[in-house]
């Protein structure tokens, strides 16, 4: 533990919610990174002799109708689903933050145009607009990310814009302006760092939303395509066997719930730490 990190560690240690959330997320990150080392079997290789085996010591989560080891598939699925939650949030975050900063600071016609666009996008139910865009682009994870970037930025833009409207009237903004600093410098170096806390906290609950949406879209057959191991796809594959082989659907679903819980706890803890009320 270096000296610079010590205060951060103290702040985290005093908040059990944040600590629990970070531990869960770190665990999932480690599982994703070491998947090839820790997964006991090949996640895609089919084995006709091992079809629909219930959980046992050899296969803790059982096997599916192709004889694939569910435990190994859940481990490999961590890579895909963690990626969905992170990439699906990063692009909307960057776009929304930029738009919100500019719209809030510049104001006027720029602001009006962006706010109208946001109103229109918000008029569509989130998943319906996502599915419509994916219908045009074709199924797949890439389409999901593009659709996310096109739709997801509005929440961040609204959060940051509201903050900017308040911040641009504070003294240090006026001071920076009178020192002759450029608009972009004031917006992004002086005001944005003070406006971003709410968005960072929101991005954690957004990770939950994006994870659930990505898994749902994959479940519907419009996201990640089989035979790739992804938790939503695995639930869909197990659906035909729920009367006889419950383990195919149970474990991937539990993984989604646990990862989502990690993001929720981290979000709650961060909100507490940064003094943001939702």
């Amino acid at each position, binding site marked *: 533990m270096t000296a610079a990190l010590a205060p951060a560690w103290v702040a985290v240690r005093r908040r059990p919610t944040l600590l629990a959330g970070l531990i869960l997320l770190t665990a999932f990150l480690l599982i994703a990174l070491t998947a090839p080392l820790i997964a006991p079997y090949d996640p895609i290789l089919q084995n006709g002799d091992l079809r629909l085996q219930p959980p046992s010591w050899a296969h803790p989560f059982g096997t599916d109708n192709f004889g694939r080891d569910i435990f190994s598939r859940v481990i490999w699925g961590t890579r895909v689903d963690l990626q969905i939650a992170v990439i699906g949030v990063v692009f909307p975050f960057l776009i929304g933050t930029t738009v919100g900063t500019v719209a809030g600071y510049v104001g006027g016609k720029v602001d009006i145009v962006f706010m*109208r*666009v946001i*109103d*229109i*996008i*918000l*008029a*569509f*139910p*989130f*998943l*319906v*607009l996502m*599915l*419509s*865009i*994916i*219908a*045009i682009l074709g199924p797949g994870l890439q389409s999901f990310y593009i659709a996310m970037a096109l739709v997801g930025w509005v929440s961040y833009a609204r959060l940051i814009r509201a903050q900017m409207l308040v911040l641009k009237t504070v003294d240090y903004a006026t001071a920076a302006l009178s020192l002759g600093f450029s608009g972009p410098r004031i917006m992004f170096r002086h005001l944005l760092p003070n406006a971003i806390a709410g968005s960072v906290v929101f991005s954690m*609950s957004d990770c*939950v939303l994006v*994870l*659930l*949406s990505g*898994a*749902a879209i994959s*479940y*519907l*057959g*419009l996201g990640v395509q089989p035979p790739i191991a992804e938790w*939503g796809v695995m*639930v*869909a594959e*197990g*659906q035909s066997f*729920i*009367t006889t082989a*419950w383990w195919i*659907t*149970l474990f*991937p*679903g539990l993984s*989604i*719930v*646990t*990862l*989502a*819980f990690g*993001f*929720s*706890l981290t979000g*709650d803890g961060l909100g507490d730490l940064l003094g943001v009320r939702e």
Partner: protein
Amino acid sequence: MHRYKFVLYRPLQFLPVLFGISLITFVLVRLIPGDPARVLLGTKSTPTAIAAIRAQYGLDQPIWLQYFYFLQNLAQGEMGKSILYKIDVLRLITTRIEPTLALVLCSVLLSLIIAVPLASLAARSNGGPADHIVRFISTFGIGFPPFWLALMLIIFFSVRLDLFPVSGYGENLADKLYHLILPSLTIALSLSTVLIRSLRTAMIAELKGDLATAARARGMPESIVFWRHVVPNSLVPTVNLLAVNIGWLIGGTVVVESVFALPGMGQLLVRAIFSRDYMVVQGVAMVFACATVLVNFIADIVTVAIDPRVKQ
């Protein structure tokens, strides 16, 4: 009646949004690569059908004129024909509204039945063990994917206990409601995690508020203070929260209808995407968007009706 004046002028403010909705759905379908007439009619289109749709939508005209034709058709309730079902999109959608609407209403009702008692329990023991348990449940429950929760409910209630049907929609009213129980429960469980949080916060604020203090000063027992004063006042922010979440609720029905094979608009949308029935995708997206705008408008009216202090 002065405070209801917004009911008259608010719809005018919707015009730019409705215009935007039509523009987005128009652009979406035109972005598909290839000849729009062929895209809209599917691969098995006849030359005469292609010629007819070219004339109707002005597909050989400049793009802004095409948009004008699109609006003109829309104003006449003309959303094109479904490739798969061979009937008018608008007629197809109207046959699918009932299950979706019933599902949304049952889910909202059920989620209130779940959320109000749990939020009350948490708020009245503010900081106590019951509060911690309820807050844990709501934080944990937010991460439950509805499609998976639906399957778990099926495994438990339909397969193990044999209480409810696995999928489908009934013939008469009682049978339909019977088929709607598990789908609504799925959505209600997810929705109530959000409702519990906001209701709990509102109730705690109301418990400390002037109304409750005044009622206590008049010697009212705590339970009457709670159910007569705290609960009704806490429902105002919840109505707004439900309206804000209507988009999320509709997304939930899309997924849950697919799991339970309910013949609603959500299932129609998903099937249309798979069969490249773009006119249907366009129509359903537009109807869902207009419904969202309408629900928010109704919520504004309800808020004013519940709380006379609110001014729009």
